[in-house]
C-alpha cells in the first residue's frame, strides 16, 4: 500500500496536498523582547499561487516573513519549505527585503547588486564570467533597468532601487519568491513593472508571496490573501477571504467603514 493511500485512508488528504507546498507554517511565534510580534500563526501557501500578506502597521507581516525564512529567530513553531527545512530548500527560494533595510551609499553598481543573486550558484571563490553578466543583464532587462547597469546604486530613485532588488531575486532563478513590501513608496511605472514581472513568475508556475499594504489593489494583483494582526485572522482565495468582515477583524477600528465600501470586496 502506498504512503499516499495510507494517508488518504486516515482522512488527511489535505496534508498530502500540502506536504510539498512552497510554504507550510505551524504555530510560528516571533517576539522582540517579551512581546510577541507574531503569535502562533499557521499558514499554507500552495504552489503557483500569488498571496498578499495584509494587516495594519506593526501587525507582524514582515516579521512573519522573516521568521518563516529564519532571518529573525523563532520562539516556537515549525516551518517547512517544499516539505523540507529551509536550509535544505534554500536554492529554491528568493527573498526580496525591504528597500529601506540597506544603506544605498554602499560602493556598488546596479549590476554588482544583481550579481549578488548569483553568489549561491557561482560559489564563493570563482570569478565572474561573461555568461554570469549576461544572466544578470537579462534580469535587469526584465525589470526595465538594463540602461542603469553601470549606475552607482546611490543615484537611483526609490522605485529603481526596488526593481534592482527584484532583479537580484530573479537572478536566483527560484521557484518561490517572498517579497517584503515591494510596492512601498514606489512610482507608478515601477509598480506596473513589478506587477508584470510577478504575473510572469506566476504564469511560469512559480509561487509568489508579498507583504502588501494597499488594500485597493489586492483583488487586481493577487489570488490569495493571508490576513495577519499578530495572530492569523484568515487565509484563503481572494474571492472568499478578502471580505469586509475579515478586514474589519484584522484592522479593528483603524479601517473606516467608508474605506471598506470602496474596495472591490468579495
Amino acid at each position, binding site marked *: 500500500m502506498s504512503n499516499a493511500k495510507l494517508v488518504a485512508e486516515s482522512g488527511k488528504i489535505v496534508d498530502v496536498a500540502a506536504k510539498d507546498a512552497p510554504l507550510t507554517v505551524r504555530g510560528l511565534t516571533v517576539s522582540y523582547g517579551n512581546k510577541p510580534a507574531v503569535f502562533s500563526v499557521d499558514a499554507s501557501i500552495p504552489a503557483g499561487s500569488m498571496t498578499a500578506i495584509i494587516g495594519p502597521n506593526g501587525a507582524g507581516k514582515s516579521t512573519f516573513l*522573516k521568521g518563516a*525564512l*529564519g*532571518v529573525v529567530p523563532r520562539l516556537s513553531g515549525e516551518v517547512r519549505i517544499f516539505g523540507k527545512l529551509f*536550509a535544505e530548500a*534554500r536554492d529554491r*527560494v*528568493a*527573498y526580496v*527585503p525591504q528597500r529601506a*533595510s*540597506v*544603506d544605498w551609499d*554602499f*560602493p*556598488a*553598481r546596479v549590476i*554588482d*547588486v544583481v550579481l*549578488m543573486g548569483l*553568489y*549561491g550558484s557561482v560559489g*564563493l*571563490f570563482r570569478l565572474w564570467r561573461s555568461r554570469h553578466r549576461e544572466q544578470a543583464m537579462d534580469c535587469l532587462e526584465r525589470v*526595465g*533597468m*538594463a*540602461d*542603469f547597469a553601470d549606475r*552607482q546604486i*546611490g543615484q537611483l*530613485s526609490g522605485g*529603481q532601487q526596488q526593481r534592482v532588488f527584484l532583479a*537580484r531575486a530573479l537572478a*536566483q532563478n527560484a521557484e518561490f519568491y517572498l517579497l517584503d513590501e515591494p510596492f512601498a513608496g514606489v512610482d*507608478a*511605472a515601477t509598480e*506596473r*513593472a513589478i506587477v508584470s514581472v510577478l504575473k510572469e513568475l506566476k504564469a511560469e508556475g512559480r509561487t509568489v508571496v508579498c507583504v502588501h499594504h494597499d488594500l485597493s489593489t489586492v483583488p487586481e494583483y493577487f489570488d490569495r490573501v493571508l490576513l495577519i494582526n499578530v495572530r492569523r485572522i484568515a487565509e484563503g482565495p481572494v474571492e472568499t477571504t478578502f471580505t469586509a468582515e475579515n478586514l474589519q477583524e484584522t484592522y479593528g477600528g483603524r479601517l473606516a467603514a467608508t474605506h471598506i465600501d470602496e474596495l472591490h470586496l468579495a
Partner: protein
Amino acid sequence: MSFIEYFISALFLQAGYNSALVAVGAGLLGLSAGSAGAFIFLRKRALVSDAISHATLPGVGLAFMIMVAFGSDGRWLPGLIIGSAVSSAIGLLMVEWITRKTRLTEDAAIGAVLSVFFGFGIVLLTVIQTMSSGRQAGLENFLLGSTAGMLISEAMTIAIAGALAAAFVFMLRRPMTLVAFDPEYAATTGVNVRNIDLAMMGLALIVTVIGLKIVGLILIVALLIIPPVTARFWTNQVGPMIGIAAGVGGLSGYIGAVLSAAEASLPTGPIIVLIAFGFFLVSALFSPLRGGLASALRHQRFQRRVHRRQGLLSLARREPIYDGLTLRILRRSGMIRRDGVATARGRVAAQKAARDEARWAVARRMLPDDSAIERYDGLTPIERMMTPDQIDEIDRIIAARNGAKA
C-alpha cells in the same frame, strides 16, 4: 650618511637586509590592515576594532609575566602575540555578549570593554616595571609601536602573518560583501551572518596583534580605518575599493617604517598613521570622483546649467529675468545684450529650449515607462537621450495638436 640619503636608500631596500625586512613586514601589515579594514568599514563596525586593540594590553602583560615565570626572556614576540590574541578575543566576545544579552547598545559595550581592559593592562605593565627579573624595557613600545632593535625573526613573523591575513580577506570577499551590504538577504542565501561577522572581527584581531610591535595598540585602529575611507573617495565598487585600501595601507606601512628607521627618534606607529592620513587628505580634497574639490566644481557647473536653462525658457516665454546669476550667465554666453534684450543667438537657443520642453512633455505621456524619461534631469539635450525617430514622432504629435487647435 644624512637622514635624506639614508631615507632614499632605505626606500629602495638598499639600507641593509634587516631594515629592508622590517619595511616589507610593515608594508604587508598595512596591506592586510587596509583590506580587512575595508570590510569592517563597510559593515560600519570601526569602533569594534578599537575595542579589540585596547583589549590586547592585559594579554601582553600576562604573557610577559608567564614567560618570565618560566624563566625565559619574556619578550618573545610569538608568545606576546598569542597572549594579546587571547585577551582581545575575550574582549571581542564580551562586546558581542553584552550587545546580544543585555539592552545595552554596541557603542556602550565597546566603551566599557575598551576602558576596563586597557586599565587592567596598564596596571599589569606598572607591576611589570617593578619586577626584578626579565628585561621589561621596551614593553611600553607596544602602546605606540617601534621598529628599533626589531629582530629578523620578528619581522618575518609579521610579514608572513600579514600576507596570510590578506589572502584570507580575498577568499572571504564575497560573503563579507554580502553581509556588509544586506545581512538579512545574505542569511536567506545560506551565508552564516554571525560566523562571517566573527571572521571579519577575527581578521581585525589578527591584524591588531601582528601590528602591535610596529604600529602599537593605540593607533592600529587608524591603519584599519583610514585606508578604506581613503579608498572610498576613488571608487564606487567594492573590488577596487579593497585594492586601493590595501595599497594605501601597504604604502603607509612601508614608507612609515623606512622613515622611522632613518631617524630612530621618530615613533613608528604615529609616523605610519600620519602618512596614511596624508593619503586621506589628498584623496578627500582632490579625488575626481568623490573629492571635495570635484564635488564643488560639479555643483557649480550644474547650478550654471540650471540657471542657463531657466533663463532661456524665460526668454522664450518673454518673461522678465531678475536673478543676477542667470543674467550674468546669459550675458557672458552671448544670449542677451547688456540691456537684457535677447540676441539673435539667444532667440534661437530659447526657441530650442522651449521646443525641447514641449517634446519632453509629450514624451512623458507617450512613453511613461521608458528609461530615458527616468534618466532625464531636465537639462540634457533631447538628442542625447532619444533616437531621431522618437523625436520625429514626438514632433508629429505636437504638429497634429497645433493643427487641431488652429
